[in-house]
């Protein structure tokens, strides 16, 4: 097994770990964290694809690499937006988790 395949399997496993955290953890902040973890795994898969497409004089195909750079930036922007949303939600409802008993923000406001 060469290094690219090894990192490919690592990326695949990271996607699984991130997906598990995204589904099971009820705290929005932890969901954001898990989503970023998942994203890191997907980017790594792109890196492996780029590495395998290397030609003479290059370490990898620059097109997927450039796409990953763009993707990291967009993921950051989305994370910043999501965190701001979670914080506003927390300010409005006084709770920092989406538990199964609250159907929406209105519900939470009545309780708090």
């Amino acid at each position, binding site marked *: 097994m060469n290094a690219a395949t*090894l990192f490919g399997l690592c990326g695949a*496993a990271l996607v699984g770990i991130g997906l598990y955290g995204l*589904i099971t953890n009820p*705290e929005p902040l932890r969901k954001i*964290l898990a989503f*970023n973890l998942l994203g890191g795994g997907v980017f790594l898969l792109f890196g*492996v694809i780029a590495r395998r497409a290397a030609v003479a004089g290059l370490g990898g195909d620059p097109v997927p*690499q450039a796409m990953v750079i763009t993707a990291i930036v967009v993921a950051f922007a989305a994370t910043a937006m999501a965190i701001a949303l979670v914080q506003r939600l927390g300010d409005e409802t006084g709770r920092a988790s989406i538990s199964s008993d609250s159907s929406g923000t209105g519900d939470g406001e009545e309780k708090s």
Partner: protein
Amino acid sequence: MSIASVFDVALVALILAIGASTILVRKAFAAVVMFVVYGLLLSIAWVRLHAVDVALTEAAIGGGMTGLLLLGAVARSRSVNVGGPWIGRPARLATCALCALVVAGLAIAMLHPPEVIPTLAPTVMESLPQSGLGNPVAGVLFVFRALDTLLEKVVLLLALLGVWSLAPDRAWGGMPGLHVYARSDPTLIFLAQLLPPVGIVFGIYMCWVGAKDPGGAFQGGTVLAAMWLLVIVAGLQKAPAIGRLWLRGLLVAGPVLFLAIGLAGWVFADAFLAYPAGYAKPLIVAVEAALTLSIAVALGMLAAGPPERAQQQ
């Protein structure tokens, strides 16, 4: 097994362990710290995949800036951190099965690459000399897929607009909070006095060198943003009110210049975002310089969060 492959196996094991503990650890603060470590380890993996540009971006944005954002969020939400109920055991097992399926699918795809691997690398290398750039990734970002890069900056600005829009009405146009970090510590002030000038030189270097070596506007802008945040957090300077004209001017300067050069491409070259022959490199350097400033301000303000206090005066 060579030393390099031993290193790779250890690195992968470490990445997976840290990634898993990011999910499993109980405290949100510990999870964020784990995530920052994960980002740094991942950037080493990128170096091993011969993608140094991506490694720099991952370390700066994926680990550093995202970590900063999440740390701020944890500090702010600590008082209301109730830790809701986790889902039940059957659902968790089902989730496990689902994740295992996804991993297996991806792993099979990774273990069986296509016979003829599709690659655009030769095409890029063929056309790169025309642009005058030496770094193929910068070539893709600013020449072949310039529209993606332009829209990426627009996404960043839209995210900032979104974050600002979440401020309460009375704070609109005011100053971002950042008080969760605020601590007038002489040691922090000492660092904020010494490090930023060095960081400025390094940020400009990262932007400048991006044309021929790994680096670029985004990595340089992140370094500048980090220095700016350090000065603000140490209390040497106030965070600017989001209504300030200079702030908004800097934010749009990069994308506007990029767009203007792109539109000029219709007149002087034959298409939108095409550069006239012979002028590609100076134009790209100008765009990168403007973008670096815009990115630095945008990242700094994104990390600072929505405005919380109304502007004084």
